């Protein structure tokens, strides 16, 4: 309910700049917003409880129940469990991966990280280095997936766009067309300003 199948969102303020975002975030409705708020409250309260248990373990009991729980669990168990709980509470619900295309500069892929604590991992590829952008197919389990790759000059590995979500073929094709249009269509060569250099 909190996530949908990967869907495409395009932001294109000018014809030569576009951002293609594939996200599992469903369109915002009132019910969803409420659910979202509820989840946030739950997360915060759970992390507070975990913190309190840890606190009760170290110092004077903060609450009778918590203190009993904290005392009953041995420390080598308590600490990893607390760490795991914190990690689980900081996990993101939805995934988001995007491709930013800037004519004259290059393309940039980015993935949302697994937790709220880390920043997005981005990779910028200058236009000079882009050898090709193509749609490829591969087996994944028992199905064939189509995926967008950027072939980078002088590198052994290709860069897969939307590596985690691997959206459907229709989305991939739309993005591919958009990227080609944005990067190359109607491109005239710039005249270098000779007076300056």
């Amino acid at each position, binding site marked *: 309910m909190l996530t949908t199948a990967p869907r495409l969102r395009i*932001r*294109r*303020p*000018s*014809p*030569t*700049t576009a*951002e293609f975002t594939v996200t599992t975030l469903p369109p915002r409705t009132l019910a969803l917003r409420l659910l979202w708020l509820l989840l946030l409250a739950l997360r915060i309260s759970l992390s507070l409880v975990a913190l309190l248990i840890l606190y009760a373990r170290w110092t004077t009991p903060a609450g009778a129940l918590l203190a009993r729980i904290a005392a009953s669990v041995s420390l080598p168990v308590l600490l990893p469990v607390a760490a795991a709980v914190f990690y689980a509470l900081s996990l993101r619900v939805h995934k988001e991966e995007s491709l*930013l295309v*800037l*004519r*004259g*500069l*290059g393309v*940039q892929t*980015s993935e949302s990280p697994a937790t709220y604590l880390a920043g997005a991992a*981005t990779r*910028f590829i*200058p*236009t*000079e280095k882009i*050898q*090709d952008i*193509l749609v490829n197919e591969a087996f994944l389990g028992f199905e064939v997936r189509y995926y967008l790759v950027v*072939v980078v000059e002088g590198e*052994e590995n*290709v860069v897969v766009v939307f590596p985690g979500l691997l959206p459907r073929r229709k989305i991939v094709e739309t993005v591919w067309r958009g990227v080609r249009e944005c990067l*190359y269509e*109607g*491109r*005239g*060569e*710039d*005249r*270098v*300003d000779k007076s*300056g*250099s």
Partner: protein
Amino acid sequence: MHPFSTLTLGIFVAGYITARWDLVTRLYELAIFAVEYGVVLRVARGIVVLTAFFLAIFVPVALLARRETTLHDGLMRVFWPTDIRKSDRTGVVVGWRNSTLDVFVVTILEDVDAHNVEFHLRSGTFFRSSPHSPSRIYELCGHSSMHVLGVSNAATQDAIDPSWVCAKASTSSRYPRISCAKASSIQLILYDRPRPKGMQYISLNPIALALGDKGTLPEDVASSEDDSEEAKHEKAIKENRRMLVEKLKQHSIVRRVASARDKALPKIVNQVNWSWELEQALQQNVGRLGPRPKRGLSVSERVVESATTMRNYVLVQLWTLFSVYLFPIVQKAFVLVLLFHRMVAEIFLIILEFRAKPGYAALKDISATAQQIEIRLQQFCYWPMQYVTLRQRKANWASVTTSHPDYIRFYNSLWLVANDVIIGMAVGSYIIEHKDWVADQIRDLLRTYTVEALQRGISWLMGWPAGLKLNGELAAFLGDLFLWVIDYWSSCIETLSPMLPHIIWFIGFSSFAGASMPIAMFSDLLSVLTLHIYSFYLASARIYHWQLTILRSLFHLFRGKKHNVLRNRIDSCDYDLDQLLVGTILFTLLFFLLPTVMVFYLNFAIARMIIISLKAGFDTLLSCLNHFPLFALMLRLKDPSRLPGGIHFELRDTHYPTTPDANDNLLNEPPTSIIYLKNIPLPFRDMFHQYFQMAHRIRKHYLSPRVLLCLVTGQFVPPINRKNLYSLQYSMLPARRATVWEMWRAVNTEIDIPQKKPFQMPNIPQLQNGGKRPTGFGRTRS
């Protein structure tokens, strides 16, 4: 034309006509003659033909050319600094024009004339008082001068070049609004100026923390030394990948030529790095453009000025006294001490690196202590050179970013050594104070684990361990042999034990040279005090291996075959009956004795492995103390933009005020996308890259199936090459250290720089004093 020059020309023509009147009459006659003979008609015909030709060919060509030029995408790219001052005044936008529609804005000069600015930019007025030569700027930014890019908040659209940018920045809006007559769409890329004084910069590639002059060397060593099979396998994989990459290249249908805008990216990175200093220079010198009114000082100001002049005078005198008489002596003495130190270091280094024959082990390959001393000495040798290169940084603009990794390396190694010494002092004083206790502990440990545990283990093996029916006689023989040697060894240790507190005291004392020293010494001590285990391991492995080889050849005999050495294969062979009989009997005998020998071998092999892993632990500690990227980590926390790891872009939402004001008709804005250029700080993973590499190398060496096979068959497990293991520690040092002579020269050239200083230094307080008062037309300086 100027009225005066028109008048002059008129007077000249009138004078000429009067002076040469006969020429004028001749011309008049010529004209009448031409009219009479139809010259005019012919001329008119010629003109008509030429006009037709022009209309038919030249005009369509010109039209086509114009259409072609307007056909290019009309994308304008504007780099705009985020911290540019926002005001409603008119100004001139100054920066670099990388190509017609690709501009890089450095600053806006307010209340000046654009053509005037252009002239002064070309003649270099702005950099006349700069401390360093501006040619370096032009070289790195790729242009011979800065350009006027446009105007901001212009009142009228007249006299604006079509390729000029019209910016409209006001104090209320967050982003400037850009338009240009030639552009059909705009990318507005906002960037934060890195502060070169704070050593911030951006770069396309992550900053390299390790010294790069021998990056490929350890790999080569590894590949040449590893067993041929693994190397072959790796080579095959690499070859396969290369083929795939080649194939992929053939898949691209269109080979697109990069446009000037695509190629400008490295230049733009440099321009971003320079933008702060250029802005400072431009804003400081904007007063040179026009006349500056001079105002007499008031009485109070004069009093203040004379007082500060007096203070400055005293300071200057003191400073010259110091710099002329005292400083050179101190410096010379310091240089001499350094040089003496360098020579002593050279002697030690030669001793440590001495090899009896090329290929033999040097002292530093055998002992961890020697290795540690060598690393420290190399660092001491490298520091003066590093310092000299860092000093040269001061003689140039701060925006030249090539020396920043050097700076980080230098201070990282200094800090690590300082840390090492501090920790070493704590450890050393503890060890010296408790030397008896420490010695007792070590003695106990030695007795329990290297003597008693071994003895117990051997006696257990002698008495049918874990229900295994071993050969009692052989087990007793082997066990007695080992026990006897252990007894002898323990008596040796006992005689040595009164010496132990002194040795511990020595180790504790050595730790004042750094905590890494006692660790290295303990590592060496461990290898010396467990020498008997090493020899047991060697002996039992040899016996076990012999037995295995004999068993193998006897097995071939048992099958009626033999190993042909010349062909390296198994051939069948006709043995005599007695040969077969004896061989088979021997085979059975040895086969039944094998478990006994194997059990003893396994016992010592395990002990040996434990010692190796202990030493690996010590080595890891050492590499942490010698190489930990402490300074880089601190910088990453304090100021992430000093450790650039690449760039990334962020597409911002464009929000414009819904109510268009009157001036909006002036700026018919093309569609604009606002992009924010940001610096990615170096990821933590990259900082510890060397550690990951080392771990990978160790894992590849010790956890490979080849090593397991060696262990099982009782062959000697080759220890990992120290050069591979220590490439991490040497990654901060150059492959070849500078000789004494090179250092002497470097240190002496270094003296030249401070000699210039005394003449500049006195000016600084005066400048500060004068700079407090605003000069010019109340222009605020930023």
